């Protein structure tokens, strides 16, 4: 970990990574970022790639790609269904990595974070997965069912391989537990603003601000806040206190609404997703004009 900037022993960002560079640039612009989540292979591999490819131009600052899993315990109905559609369309973890590789051919800067569950990675083999993920141009990992108690499994080998291990913090993560949760954290901290599964409710601006302030006492990493953000207005509200707003279910819902009766992509599906992302990006950027960057 020689690449970290040590700040009073707090987990700090590695500036030379894509994630580090992106958040540094956002700070310079004086605005918060937009993190968009899409499920790999939803509703089919080609359409999913078209969506992915257009996200940076639409306004996404960081891209999270969901690795489909048959049993996504922490996800709500929208993202569960997206994963099912992708699996049905033949998506696998190897194909997800291929998709990142193709994306990197046209975009060397936008950070890519893979998000999902441990079993598909474990089935592929941790070493093989990490080698391929690094080669494909993945920047970070969020593996929902690997808490700090299981760091030996993938977190430590991933850091060793040069990937950022992005940790989830939740309202149940109390002061005593936070240092443990943040110990190996890299890239940014993903604050899950509500108790529950993805896409169900959203937290109020004050709650988010208080939570971000609490986290900032424990880390110098940027704080991205997600779970339940559906509109540009909500994204803007979150962006006033957090370093980034994460939007997932709302994007995935646009995919669902643009399917025909046989669950095939209708023409214009990717454009519809990009339109929503553009709106969310305007919400996030608008917040920066009113907010005080120094307080972030």
């Amino acid at each position, binding site marked *: 970990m020689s690449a970290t900037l040590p700040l009073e022993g707090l987990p700090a960002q590695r500036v030379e990574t894509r994630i580090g560079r992106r958040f540094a640039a956002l700070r310079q612009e004086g605005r918060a970022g937009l993190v968009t989540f899409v499920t790999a292979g939803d509703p089919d591999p080609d359409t999913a790639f078209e969506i992915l490819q257009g996200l940076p131009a639409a306004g996404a600052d960081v891209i999270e790609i969901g690795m489909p899993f*048959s049993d996504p315990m922490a996800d709500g109905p929208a993202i569960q269904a997206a994963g099912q559609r992708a699996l049905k369309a033949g998506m696998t973890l190897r194909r997800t990595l291929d998709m990142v590789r193709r994306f990197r051919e046209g975009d060397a800067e936008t950070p890519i974070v893979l998000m999902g569950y*441990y079993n598909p990675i474990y089935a592929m083999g941790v070493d093989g997965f990490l080698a391929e993920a690094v080669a494909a141009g993945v920047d970070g990992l969020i593996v929902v069912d690997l808490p700090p108690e299981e760091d030996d499994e993938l977190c430590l080998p991933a850091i060793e391989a040069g990937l950022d291990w992005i940790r989830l913090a939740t309202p149940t993560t109390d002061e005593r537990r936070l240092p443990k*949760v943040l110990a190996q954290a890299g890239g940014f901290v993903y604050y899950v603003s509500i108790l529950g599964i993805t896409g169900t409710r959203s937290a109020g601006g004050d709650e988010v601000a208080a939570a971000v302030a609490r986290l900032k006492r424990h880390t110098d990493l940027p704080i991205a806040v997600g779970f339940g953000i559906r509109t540009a207005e909500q994204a803007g509200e979150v962006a006033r206190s957090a370093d980034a707003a994460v939007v997932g279910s709302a994007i995935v819902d646009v995919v669902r609404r643009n399917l025909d009766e046989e669950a095939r992509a209708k023409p214009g599906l990717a454009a519809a997703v990009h339109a929503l992302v553009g709106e969310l990006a305007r919400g996030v950027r608008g917040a920066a004009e009113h907010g005080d960057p120094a307080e972030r």
Partner: protein
Amino acid sequence: MTQPLNTYRSGPDETGHFGIFGGRFVAETLMPLILEVEQAYAATREDPSFQEEFDWYAKHYIGRPSPLYFAERMTEHLGGAKIYFKRDELNHTGAHKINNTLGQILLARRMGKTRIIAETGAGQHGVATATVCARFNLPCVVYMGATDIERQAPNVFRMKMLGAEVVPVTSGTGTLKDAMNDALRDWVANVESTFYIIGTAAGPHPYPAMVRDFQSIIGEEVRWQLAEYEGEGRLPDTLVASIGGGSNAIGLFHPFLDEPTVKMVGVEAAGHGIASGEHAASLNGGRPGVLHGNRTYLLQTDDGQIVDAYSISAGLDYPGIGPEHSWLHESGRVDYVAITDREALDAFQLCTRLEGIIPALEPSHALAQVIKLAPELPKDHVLVVNLCGRGDKDVFSVAKYLGVEL
């Protein structure tokens, strides 16, 4: 990670592992809660008043000890080992499941939890949970796969009469594993108020150990009950039990794990045969993976996607198995075999006709293994099989399979 070599009973270690199996593979939201359950259970199991309370309800409410019964006609018919039935099907609610729901609800009360959730496949664990919730006046929500709700209408009605809310699960493939996913999702959203009563010796630590401890009453009773028939100090030679998640089997086996002369056989459901791909035999037809909070053997694709299990017995069709069984399998202490639907049905009928006991389809798998083993064993060989449930719930599916119109 290391277990002392001279004991099989010391697991799990402080991080919840049995060898490489077990662990705590849950989302961060649940982690503080899992740690809270772990602390509460560690304190409670040391508290004599908890054991007293458990024993009182076990005796007066469940009807324990369940008899150890010498199955004389089956023994004669098979012409080999002496066969004993551990009669856990005579428990209140008709299966071993209530041993565990009693223990967990007493813990939930001590933790001040005000709402209970559970998952169920065939409905037996759901009924056992709804039963103790009625007794202790706690609201109860049971998650059950939509397809299972259709197949198990009588149990759904029983749960509703007991005051439980039964939530149909349509996510994923709408079966037991998805019911467990939805129960976990509920728990994540209601962490303050809710206690999740998991129905088998699986899930994140401390559940596998806790459920095992509550079910170990089965094996502990066998140990002293056998003296009445075979004299003081006589140990069983072979123990046989069926395995879905594996709670009745670990309850029978665990007290004997360090007795080297006691042979143990766990019986998985082979469904239409392992080769057909339609089965529920995680150890015989799966490989290690991570699901529902623990590392264990799972039915899965090459890509690590979980595959639905199949068995005629709804209580066995779970694509995983308790982590302690995975460890006992790899260490070689317990043999794990698989029995097909057809073999289980034959055993079901034989037991019914010879002993006047209608077993559930789950222990019918164990009985089918007994039918294979007993004739090859000497007449003084003591074989104990856990009759973990009664077959009343299964008469409709058996009739259908035999082509009888009711």
